[in-house]
């Protein structure tokens, strides 16, 4: 039987003030606004790998990012030469050639976000060329007064559309996996958004990953038990808590949820 997944998320930012020099570090975020440096991304990924994480999501989150920048390439190659686990990479992906670049250098799946608002048909083009299985659509949302809005991080505005029908449209273009992130809960330890996780995962045919707000192992258990999400992704949870993926994993297993040993 297919297993549910625990997916640490690594946000990558440039924290060097010197001109023309990049220092890419792993950081965590709060509401995707306040960032905090954690350390070297590849060492952190190695720790996750030894702790049996199922997969990694790597997101380059600087503004105006050129994903093909040489320093990004160096880092991506370092990941894929040292980490033997599935990598979803994203951040600033705008074209089929960006897809090609990432897939050639070690990404197994490519995550796209703001481009879907401008040019949703890119999903279709990428799926045709590389297969749906590597086209991951990442959607940020916020919930206010029981209403859910899609958040466009690039334009800093909200799309007042129905989340489920919007997602269904993207799936019809060929999206192969969804990552849903509740921006309000990001870095807030407020627990996962079970309602949205349930609504989407039960009504779409492709795998859903939910993220934003994990605070204790019980959050994972509750979400796996009450929804059909395939995976749960977390950044802060795995980097600042004493709980590592192994401990979380054994607690989840004890609640009879089917995950890898």
């Amino acid at each position: 039987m297919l297993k549910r997944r625990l997916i640490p998320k690594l946000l990558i930012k440039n924290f060097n003030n010197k001109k023309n020099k990049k220092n890419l570090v792993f950081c965590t975020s709060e509401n995707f606004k306040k960032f905090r440096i954690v350390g070297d991304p590849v060492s952190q990924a190695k720790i996750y790998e030894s702790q049996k994480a199922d997969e990694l999501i790597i997101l380059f989150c600087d503004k105006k990012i050129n994903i093909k920048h040489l320093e990004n390439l160096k880092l991506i190659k370092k990941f894929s030469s040292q980490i033997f686990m599935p990598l979803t990479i994203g951040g600033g992906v705008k074209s089929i050639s960006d897809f090609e670049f990432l897939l050639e250098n070690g990404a197994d799946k490519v995550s796209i976000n703001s481009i879907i608002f401008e040019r949703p048909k890119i999903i279709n083009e990428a799926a045709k060329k590389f297969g749906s299985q590597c086209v991951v659509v990442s959607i940020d949302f916020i919930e206010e007064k029981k209403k859910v809005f899609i958040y466009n991080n690039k334009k800093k505005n909200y799309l007042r559309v129905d989340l489920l029908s919007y997602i269904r449209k993207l799936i019809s273009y060929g999206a192969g996996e969804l990552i849903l992130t509740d921006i309000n809960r990001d870095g807030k330890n407020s627990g996962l958004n079970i309602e949205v996780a349930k609504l989407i995962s039960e009504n779409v045919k492709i795998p859903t990953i939910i993220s934003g707000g994990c605070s204790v192992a019980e959050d994972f258990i509750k979400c796996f038990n009450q929804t059909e999400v395939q995976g749960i992704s977390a950044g802060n949870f795995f980097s600042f808590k004493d709980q590592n993926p192994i401990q979380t994993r054994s607690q989840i297993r004890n609640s009879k949820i089917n995950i890898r040993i």
Partner: protein
Amino acid sequence: MLKKKIGIISYKAGNIYSIQKSFEYLGCEVSILQNINNLKNINYLVLPGVGSFGHCVKQLSKNFSLSIFKKTIFKDQFPLLCICVGMQMLGNLSQESPELNGLNIFNFTVFKMKEKNHLKIPHVGWNDVIFKKNFKYFKKNHKYDFYFDHSYIVKEDKFCIGLSEHTEKFSSIIQNKNILACQFHPEKSQENGINFLKTFLDFYA
């Protein structure tokens, strides 16, 4: 001991970098092949494949002579490892791109996974492979997990040595003589994946 020499067939379809690094991790020397006219310095061939069946078949036949490829496999008996769509291409046809022929090395058709209940497609993540025979590090009738990412499958047939199940049962490993093929990604399957690659190298040593 001489280093084992791996040739990865490169035809712009997928993540060959991770495959290269996995074999290097195992102490092999890896070459990325743009053609297979001269395989003097190669002991093993790897046919990767990520993407759609149609794209892979087109790219492969554009860059490689399929008759030389077949001669290498059948006559020269090069050990060949095929991964994911690389495995699917060994068959005759795929529902994904019905207008194109596969390599016709095995006699199977590639089907789209059936929909069933609440199970999601693509089949992404870690799933069990049950080995139908002892295979070096893997014991007959035991389960091992590997990482999958696909929507199309090869059904169970007589060459199937590893079986998995999502919405239906399918061949996750097939093997005949010098050809070994897997639907999962050994290069992404951590310890089990590394052991699978080692098995490929030892099996045909």
